[in-house]
């Protein structure tokens, strides 16, 4: 079945737009009707379901090639399905315009308050954290979430600096170094870290110039973080930085254009309790292409 089969009435207002073609043809796998069969290929599906546990849909990411999951309990369901469709079918469009697309809820753009910093070495971390603390301090709606925001920024920074860089043959450069070692991107490369908020939403992310994310590897790391609860001993990282991000967000978007650039971005709702942030069923979108 397709998304159109499930949500025909909701899509009627857009049936004359290119979005209709984009969304309507996408296959949907409904977790409310049961779990995927072993060996089923869901790589071109969007997973949907009501309050599906993170570990449950991550198993489908690992075992069935699923790369997009949307919770039907999401109060912005059509928006999230639209995002899933763009990531699945037009990943380059998303990578070129992530904030414009993410900010397109309710059919209109909301005024955005933007923070961003470039970085390329360990010495930049203190500047980045000090800068985001000032940004949080200047925006009342984020004060209560400051601890969560700092944790997400810290994990994004560390991943972009240590895990992203690869050499000309695609081998990781810094991944096996201790995280307190001093490293610097080779060449003139820089990554960008950003936080963008509207009245109700906050998007935090990084764009790095490496394009080295492997879809299967990331899916396995996340699945292990949720199923085993142990620090990893087979790498220098702890193995649950991504989980720490997703636990504090409602959606995580991971896109990587091979050997070009990668985007890792969290979406949080503002003006809600920490309890609601933690309790909101999670959504995940991954596309590594090119």
């Amino acid at each position: 079945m397709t998304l159109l089969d499930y949500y025909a009435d909701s899509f009627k207002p857009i049936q004359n737009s290119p979005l209709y073609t984009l969304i309507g043809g996408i296959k949907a796998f409904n977790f409310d009707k049961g779990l995927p069969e072993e060996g089923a290929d869901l790589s071109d599906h969007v997973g949907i379901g009501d309050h599906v546990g993170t570990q449950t849909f991550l198993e489908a990411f690992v075992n069935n090639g699923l790369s997009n999951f949307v919770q039907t309990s999401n109060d912005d369901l059509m928006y999230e399905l639209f995002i899933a469709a763009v990531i699945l079918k037009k990943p380059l469009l998303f990578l070129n315009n992530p904030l414009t697309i993410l900010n397109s809820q309710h059919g209109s753009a909301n005024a955005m308050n933007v923070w961003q910093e470039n970085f390329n070495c360990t010495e930049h971390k203190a500047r980045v954290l000090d800068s985001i603390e000032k940004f949080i301090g200047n925006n009342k709606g984020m004060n209560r979430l400051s601890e969560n925001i700092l944790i997400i920024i810290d994990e994004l920074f560390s991943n972009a600096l240590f895990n992203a860089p690869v050499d000309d043959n695609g081998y990781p450069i810094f991944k096996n170094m201790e995280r307190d070692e001093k490293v610097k991107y080779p060449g003139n490369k820089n990554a960008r870290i950003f936080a963008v908020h509207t009245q109700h939403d906050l998007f935090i992310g990084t764009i790095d110039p490496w394009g080295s994310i492997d879809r299967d590897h990331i899916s396995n790391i996340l699945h292990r973080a949720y199923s085993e609860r142990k620090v990893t001993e087979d790498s220098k990282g702890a193995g649950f930085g991504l989980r720490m991000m997703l636990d504090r967000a409602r959606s995580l978007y991971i896109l990587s254009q091979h050997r070009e650039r990668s985007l890792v971005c969290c979406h949080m709702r503002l003006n809600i309790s920490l309890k609601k942030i933690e309790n909101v069923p999670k959504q995940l979108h991954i596309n590594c292409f090119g």
Partner: protein
Amino acid sequence: MAGFKVTQKIDDNMKTRLQIEGAMDEHSDYGSIEAEFTDEVVFDFGDVSHINSTGIKHWVQWVEKITADRPHLRFVFINCPKAIVDQMNMVEGFLPSNSKVQSFKVPYYCETCDKDTVCTFVAGREYSVENGQLQLTIPDQKCGRDDCEMEPDVVEQKYFRFLKPR
């Protein structure tokens, strides 16, 4: 953001007390801690400002080493902020088996008034274990208006899970 610091002393009860301050991150180094502990060690997390996954890993690895070297050592944790409690619940090995949490923080929030506060839960006052069962009392917190009050701003069945007898 303050750097990681551990201050070690003998407290008024003649127990080793370790005050952990600043960021528990990739620079958190427990190598400076002298291994000559009393039979019970008190860890005060009250001044921990920030934590990341690498800091959590360093802590877990250090705890593993210490408990392997001193299997009868008792750990007492006090003034644990939410960031630490979250790791106690999420990461296997964060809380050593021979440990007790003497006090920890619980955020409260009133959605109507957008007001928040933090309360300290203390063993023997808000919680205890009796006959193998956890007894937990969640105190009320007023927010200044008569018609509403603050609630614990945590998912209770997750947040208090570390208190359950193991």
